[in-house]
């Protein structure tokens, strides 16, 4: 019994050390800006990005409190070019209730040193903020400051 307890403590110590090592690993690529609390993440898959680019409504998925919520995304006016398109995904901040994700968003683009759009920030009238990141390595988008509407899809 004493030997077993020693074994158990030994393994628990290994678990603890590994957890600490995990905590010390690089943080996520994007950290929450000061004053904002990350609530979830969202993604619009590549095929839906292309639908948006073609002027149609697209669908995305919000992951919030361990549940996936599909939503419709329209009016974004996204122009996509480049050799390697991909998903558009990002984080959601200040979302308390899932219904508050709905609304009209006005994107403000982020640029890199070469003045290429790398992403965007947008918020609705309920204070929910979306951060948008491009996934395709050679993907370029042209965001117009049109109102993009998000509406949850009834499951």
């Amino acid at each position, binding site marked *: 019994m004493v030997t077993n307890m020693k074994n158990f403590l030994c393994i628990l110590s290994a678990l603890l050390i590994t957890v600490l090592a995990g905590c010390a*690993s690089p943080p996520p690529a994007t950290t929450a800006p000061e004053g904002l609390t990350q609530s979830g993440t969202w993604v619009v898959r590549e095929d839906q990005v292309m639908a948006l680019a073609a002027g149609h409504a697209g669908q995305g998925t919000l992951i919030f409190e*361990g549940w996936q919520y599909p939503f419709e995304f329209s009016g974004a006016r996204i122009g996509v070019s480049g050799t390697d398109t991909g998903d558009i995904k990002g984080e959601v901040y200040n979302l308390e209730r899932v219904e508050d994700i709905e609304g009209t968003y006005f994107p403000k683009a982020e640029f890199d040193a070469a003045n290429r759009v790398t992403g965007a920030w947008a918020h609705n009238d309920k204070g929910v903020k979306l951060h948008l990141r491009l996934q395709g390595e050679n993907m370029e988008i042209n965001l117009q400051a049109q109102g993009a509407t998000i509406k949850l899809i009834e499951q």
Partner: protein
Amino acid sequence: MRRALKNFTAAIGLAAGLGSGNVASADLGEAATNPVSNLVQFRLQNQHSWENYNADSWSNAGLIQTVIPLPSVASKFDSLKGIVTRATIPYVSTPQLDGVGRKHGMGDTNFLAFAVPKKAPPKSVWGYGVAIDIPTGGDDEFTGSGTWKMGPSAVFMASPRKGLQVGALVFHQWDTYDIRSNAADFSTTFIQPILTQHFPGGWYISLPDTPQNYDWEEEEWTLNLGAVLGRVMPVGGQPMQIFGGVYYNPEEKDEGRISAEWTFKFQVGWLFPQ
């Protein structure tokens, strides 16, 4: 013990070596550790008990587990957010009581289904449903119970702050239809406390995903005390969940009944987000 520790170290090494911090991992991780998430999952698990009570040998269970939501069924009920099913199919190897030889074979298949209501307290999810054991272990009394088992199930989980999940999954089963004449009466309550803390990079630590259970016929507990360390991260673009955990059961069963004392559980799971 040395071999088990070596396996454990190898598992952790694999988990640590794969992938890097991924922004989506934390939220996907919370979905993966939510027992009633609408996230499609396919899991391969191995549960190795290197020390058993009343047997001088090891036992092992290889498990295939599927988590499949049924949105088209749930959409027929206005009050429901979703319906989630979880099936666990085991293949068991256990020592024989005489200490000579082993028995291998299918164990009983466990099926849980939860209806998840839309109405829930803030930052929480709950569900209710059924727990069914299908006697796929057949006539083999070492690997199967020889009876259909059925009963109610319920789950409640709250996320008081981001990254922390607290709750419990509970179900009870009674024997309902014997397929073997000498199948024992069965009335057992299964309680799986939920306490999971997620960290940056998709890491998490949690209580065991194996329930504690109380056998009302024999009036005894079987406990799984321990911890699980896991990670959710993309591997070659495919979101995956990997975890390893060590469980200890201090409750020895009566002579003539084998039960696990020390168990190491390892999982590789594939996640299929929408």
